[in-house]
Each structure stands twice: as C-alpha cells, then as structure tokens.
C-alpha cells in the first residue's frame, strides 16, 4: 500500500465534504470520516481492496448521503443542498481537479485572519494533513491539551463566522497568499529545526509542507516568484534532511556527507529557483533564503563555500526582514570568513531576548568568537549559557561536545 495513503485521503475527503456542506459542519464531517478510516483499518486487516483509493471515494460518497440526512434532521429545515440529482452532482465534487481545488480552499481557510498563527498551524495539520492531536503535540513539542484547546478555538471561530469555502476576494488574495506561504514555511521549519530524537515525525512535517507548496503551485493564477522561491528553499533543505542527524547525533553543515544529499530534490529546487528569478518580477525573503541554501548546496565542500556571496544575500534579506535572527546568521557567516571584528559588531547589535528559542545559538556564536581568539574562559562561559538555554536534547549534546573540546585545550 502507498505510504501515507490514509493521511492524504483523509485530507482530500475533508476538503471535498467541507466544500459540499460548508466549514460550519467541520466537526460533524471529521467525526464521520474518522469512522470511515477506523472501519477501513479493521476491515483491511483480513483483506485489502484492490483499489484502496477507490474504496475511500466510494465510502465518502456514502458519507455525503448520511451527512445530508444527519444535518437536515438536525437543522429541521431543507438546507440548500443538492436534492434530486444528488448522485450526479456529488460525483463532480470527486473529480481530481475539483479535489485539488477544495484542498487549496482549505489552505486558505486555515489562514483565517481571526486565527492566531499557532491556531493556523494546528488547524492546517489537523484538517488538511490529517494529524491527530497527539501527533501535532509531538511535532510541535506542546502538550496535547494545548493543541486540543487551539483546535477547539479554531473550530468555534469558523462556526461563528459562518464561512463558506470560497477564495478570498481578489483584493485580499495577495495578503492571504502570504499567510498561506508563511504557514507552509513554519510547518517545514518545525520539522527541519526541531531535531527530535524521533525523527520520523520531523520528516512527515517537511513532507507535508512540500506537498502543500506543490498544491499551491498547481493553480496557475497563484503562482509567483515568492512561491517558487519558497518551494526551492524547501527542496534544498529537504535534500539534506537525511544527513543532518546520524546515530542520534547532530551533524553540522561542515561535517555532513555531501554525497548523501538527495540529488533529485536539489535539481527540483534549482529549477524552481531559476523560474522564480527569471519568470517573475517580485523578490521576497524566500528568494534570498533559497539563494543562501543553494550556495551551501553548490559548494563541493564546506571549505569551498562562497561565503561572500552568502553574506551579500543576508544583507539583502535583512533589508526585507530586519530581524535579529538574520543578524545572527550574518554574524555566523562573518565568523566563517574570519572577519572577527565585524562579527563582534554584528553580535553586539542583537538583543538576545528577541531570539526566543534560538537564543542558545547567539551564545554559541559568542563562544565561537572567543574561541577564535583563544579566550577559552569566556568561550566556556558562553557555551555553558548556551547549553542552559537550549531545550533540545540533540542540540544540547552537540554543544556539550564542543565544551568538552575546549576543556581539552
């Protein structure tokens, strides 16, 4: 059976049914589908259908009829659902391009401006990607109860707003598209940066982000340089997902086995990046992030990295995205270039508190600066601070190893 078949089918079915019945019935729809998937998992223990996908589609069509009855009875009114030629009309909702369209609309629904960013991510993972509360909690390193509350809030808001599953008005589409891109970007980064020991769920998040981004690109009038650049960035980073962690230890960029980077994804990313630059006028932060990722990918070894090109891209990125996190990355590049004075100045501009969970990287950068100058005591002090503020076990181990190296000096 195809990997992730259930998960992907679930997302499709939710989208189709929400399109038919409207987002206010989301909870009923999700319950009905949960039941369908539960049944499949029990029935298929003994015997699998010849075409599992067709089985799900047939089951979902039956669900439509159940739901029609259920919702009508509850609302005590003739809802404006298809009536006489129900079966024929329903079939149309299940055509491939219609399904894709429904899923895209769900993506916009997830970017509902009344949701907080964290609600948007949870909502997308639950209803579009079919993650359970527990899976989301694991992936985002949150308590299951927190996720449950977020999802409840999101559902209530949708119900209160009486949304239909339509695209935003043309004047708002640009705004919403940016929201959609950001969700995809965040979902990917949750997977890419979390470095959990159980790495399976990380890969799932990255895979979902790639899938959603591809979905976005399938609609011609949504395409933009930014989306192609985002897709390129995700491809480049995904290509080295496997080499990032080895034997439960983090392998930094310097020590990764570059021959293990996954070539087809690199090629896909390169094509996408070229398109984003050649076919579109717009320039976004994703462009510069993709260009930076591509510089790393292009280099045959860590030593062969074109740091000055990367430094330049960070400069451009900072103009679009004046965040302290960008400054921190710039400082790391300056350290690589052995421009210690410039690195020190850049680090001095950063307010560590603004880096939140990444504050440990700031401390680690100071440690590196002091190490370069053989000021071991200060280096140790910063490394210890870094270890203290780092919540990730794998990252902590990595920092501790660095500290042990200094202690040997």
């Amino acid at each position, binding site marked *: *059976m195809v990997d*992730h*078949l*259930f*998960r992907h*089918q*679930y997302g499709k079915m939710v989208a189709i049914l929400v399109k038919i019945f409207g987002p206010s019935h989301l909870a009923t729809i999700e319950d009905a589908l*949960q*039941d369908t*998937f*539960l049944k*499949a*998992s*029990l*029935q*298929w*223990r*003994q015997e*699998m259908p010849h075409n599992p996908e067709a089985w799900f589609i047939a089951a979902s069509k039956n669900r439509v009829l159940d739901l029609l009855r259920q919702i009508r009875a509850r609302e005590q009114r003739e809802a404006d659902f298809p009536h006489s030629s129900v079966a024929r009309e329903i079939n149309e909702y299940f055509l491939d391009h219609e399904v894709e369209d429904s899923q895209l609309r769900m993506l916009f629904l997830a970017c509902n401006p009344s949701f907080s960013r964290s609600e948007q991510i949870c909502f997308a993972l639950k209803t579009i990607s*079919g*993650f*359970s*509360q*527990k*899976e989301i909690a694991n992936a985002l390193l949150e308590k299951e109860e927190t996720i449950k509350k977020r999802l409840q809030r999101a559902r209530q808001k949708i119900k209160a707003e009486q949304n239909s599953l339509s695209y935003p008005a043309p004047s708002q589409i640009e705004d919403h598209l940016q929201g959609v891109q950001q969700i995809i970007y965040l979902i990917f980064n949750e997977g890419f940066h979390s470095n959990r020991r159980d790495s399976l769920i990380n890969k*799932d998040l990255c895979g979902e982000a790639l899938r959603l981004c591809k979905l976005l690109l399938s609609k011609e009038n949504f395409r933009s340089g930014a989306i192609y650049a985002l897709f390129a960035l995700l491809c480049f980073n995904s290509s080295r997902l496997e080499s990032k962690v080895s034997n439960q230890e983090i392998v930094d960029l310097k020590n990764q086995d570059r021959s293990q980077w996954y070539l087809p994804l690199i090629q896909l990313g390169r094509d996408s990046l070229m398109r984003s630059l050649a076919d579109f006028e717009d320039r976004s932060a994703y462009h510069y992030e993709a260009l930076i990722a591509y510089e790393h990918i292009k280099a045959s070894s860590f030593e062969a990295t074109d740091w000055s090109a990367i430094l330049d891209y960070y400069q451009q990125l900072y103009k679009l995205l004046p965040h302290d996190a960008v400054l921190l990355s710039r400082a790391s590049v300056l350290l690589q270039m052995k421009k210690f004075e410039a690195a020190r100045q850049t680090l001095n501009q950063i307010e560590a508190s603004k880096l939140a969970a990444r504050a440990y990287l700031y401390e680690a950068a100071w440690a590196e600066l002091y190490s370069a100058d053989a000021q071991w005591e200060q280096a140790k002090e910063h490394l210890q601070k870094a270890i203290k503020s780092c919540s990730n076990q794998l990252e902590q181990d990595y920092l501790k190893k660095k500290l042990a190296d200094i202690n040997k000096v």
Partner: protein
Amino acid sequence: MKDFMLLFLGPTYEELGLSPEELQERMGKWFAWGKKMEEQGILRGGDALYGHGKRVSGPDRIVSDGPFVESKELIGGYYTVAVENYEQAIEVSQDYPDFDLGGAVEIREVVKFEQQ
C-alpha cells in the same frame, strides 16, 4: 494439534483517537501478522469486532446496550490458531500489534470432541 483462541483485549482505536496515519500503520501490521500465520498454515479463522453491542441476560432475557466492561477488558477481535500447545500459542502472540497501546492477548484452548 490443538486449537487455541487468541482474544484481543484492550481499548479500541476509536477511544485512543488514532490518526489516519497511525490507523494505516496498525492495519499494515495486522495484515502482515495474518498473512504470516496463513503461510504457516496455522490460522483457522478470526475477525475484528466493533466496540458496541447488545447483551441478553437473566431469566427475563433482559436486553441491554454495550459496551459492558472497562475498555481495557473490551474484546476487539479474535483469531483461532492450530498449534501444539500453549507455548506455541504464546509464541504466535508475540506478533500481536497492539501491546504498546495497552492491549493484551488472552489465550484459551478450544474444547474439541474426541472419539472414544
């Protein structure tokens, strides 16, 4: 050769709120286990059972709606296997997929009619 019934006890997937991905993974494990037993020629039969049900009891044949026991005792399905003894039945049970979800296998020997 004797027949043993393996009864599967534990919370249903429904109660556990498994995701579609997890359901697919579980289903795959069950399928593989069933296939393995078939290839060994020891599988006599078996089914999965829904969690809800009815109970008829007492001299007045009172009908009540289930479930009737705590979820950890709920029978979610059974297989019947033909093996030599309890040791072999225990061996077969090692592949039961849901130990990690708090499930258990209860093994009972099936009474067979013997020609005297």
